[in-house]
């Protein structure tokens, strides 16, 4: 056993020395490889943490939201709908919701206005998210003005700043009273932005949604399961830009592996020939190449994953920020909780270490089985 370990150590000694002999080539290889793993791991860590966070904090959100559309556009919902929907069996409560957006032309920022069901601010005052407070440099007691539907500015006093630990949910929120919202938005007294339903049994969500659509063909019910599935789907690896990042990284890796698999350089072939001539067995050469593959790919995997972890969870995904922020003036400065999907990390390990090691061994096996004299010539 000790001999076996010592043999592996000697081969590893040789492999590391051989890698260091071609320092420039191998360090650039390691750098590119680490970068590919870093990008892939960063995307995996970021999207998984975001999906988990959404799953945990949105689990008590509205059970069914009923909106109204007219030729694809959202319209206010008549309050009379609430009365008839409440009569559907299984529906426990219907609450008209008032909410919308306001754009500040000076800050070039969008805010979400909302009337809370409970603890509404008194008329003339507002509760704001930490992002809004940051954008205006406002604190409790300060005044903020927004231009209403008629172009007239309404001045509000900041009653409270919502705790920054919830800024991933509330960063751009402005909570105000119903009277202020109606005056500000110009929405008619008999209308609401949408309806929020409480349903007795979660199994009845789809039945209730169907009944509402039959009752009001221009309605658009959205059930809680759909809301919860949204973040799982929009940040899945198949969606949007993420698929592009994945494709680019996968393509880089394929080119990389192909370059390796397509053959050895003349120098490497000569080295194998010399090793065979001085008495190395084919199995020794293959073992050496195996260690070479492992040394490069495992180091790249470990370094790439550690760097990606630090990037996403300690540096708040700083490199993704320009893409994530887009044109948003207001952006929550959140630090994601490090939810790690070990299955995904294991998959990344399998896809980054194993193929590279195999593609290193196969051409070496071809060279090692040829007569040393022919290889050296």
């Amino acid at each position, binding site marked *: 056993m000790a001999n076996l370990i010592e043999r592996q150590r000697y081969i590893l000694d040789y492999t590391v020395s051989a890698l260091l002999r071609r320092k420039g080539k191998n360090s650039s290889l390691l750098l590119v490889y680490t970068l590919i793993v870093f990008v892939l791991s960063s995307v995996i860590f970021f999207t998984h943490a975001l999906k988990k966070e959404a799953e945990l904090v949105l689990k008590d959100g509205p059970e069914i939201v009923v909106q109204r559309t007219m030729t694809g556009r959202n319209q206010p919902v008549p309050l009379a709908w609430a009365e008839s929907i409440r009569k559907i069996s299984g529906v426990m409560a219907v609450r008209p919701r008032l909410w919308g957006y306001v754009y500040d032309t000076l800050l070039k920022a969008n805010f979400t206005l909302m009337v809370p069901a409970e603890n509404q601010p008194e008329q003339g005052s507002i509760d704001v998210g930490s992002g809004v407070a940051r954008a205006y440099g406002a604190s409790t007691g300060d005044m903020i003005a927004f231009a209403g539907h008629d172009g007239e500015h309404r001045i509000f006093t900041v009653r409270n700043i919502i705790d920054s630990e919830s800024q991933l949910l509330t960063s751009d929120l402005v909570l105000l009273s119903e009277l202020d919202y109606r005056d500000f938005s110009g929405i008619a007294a008999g209308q609401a932005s949408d309806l929020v339903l409480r349903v007795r049994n979660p199994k009845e969500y789809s039945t209730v949604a169907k009944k509402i659509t039959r009752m009001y063909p221009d309605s658009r019910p959205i059930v809680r399961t759909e809301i919860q599935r949204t973040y799982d789907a929009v940040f899945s690896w198949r969606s949007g830009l993420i698929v592009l990042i994945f494709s680019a990284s996968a393509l880089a890796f394929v080119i990389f592996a192909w370059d390796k698999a397509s053959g050895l350089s003349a120098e490497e072939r000569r080295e194998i020939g010399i090793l065979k001539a001085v008495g190395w067995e084919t199995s020794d050469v293959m073992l050496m190449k195996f260690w070479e593959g492992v040394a490069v790919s495992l180091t790249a995997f470990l370094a790439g994953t550690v760097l990606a972890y630090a990037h996403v969870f300690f540096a708040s995904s700083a490199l993704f920020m320009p893409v994530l922020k887009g044109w948003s*003036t207001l952006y929550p400065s959140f630090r994601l909780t490090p939810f790690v999907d070990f299955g995904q990390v294991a998959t990344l390990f399998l896809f980054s270490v194993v193929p590279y090691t195999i593609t290193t061994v196969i051409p070496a096996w071809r060279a090692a089985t040829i007569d040393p004299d022919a290889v050296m010539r």
Partner: protein
Amino acid sequence: MLLRSSNIYLGATALLIMVLGGLFLYSTWTVQSSRPVFARNAALAGQLELTDLCLFTEASYTRHLSLTDLSTPFQDLPMSLEHFPSGSLVGPPPHLVRTYGKSD
């Protein structure tokens, strides 16, 4: 003692494995200790009837991803292409594609 090349490699690899293992342990600990924060945020989302995370505030259809529809991204004019960067970062929610996608 002469430092062998394999020792340097094995030492560096062991260090990286320990760092990664340490980070994963830190994850488990942080997730556990963040449970009360998630509970508070979930209660707040329930109380305010929030449906979405505040990730992209540049456009209404990316601010409220779960409530978005297929026509809002093209609302400027019928031939207008969706132009907010976050619109290309995330895909449409699955219920939207399922409900309207076939007739789109």
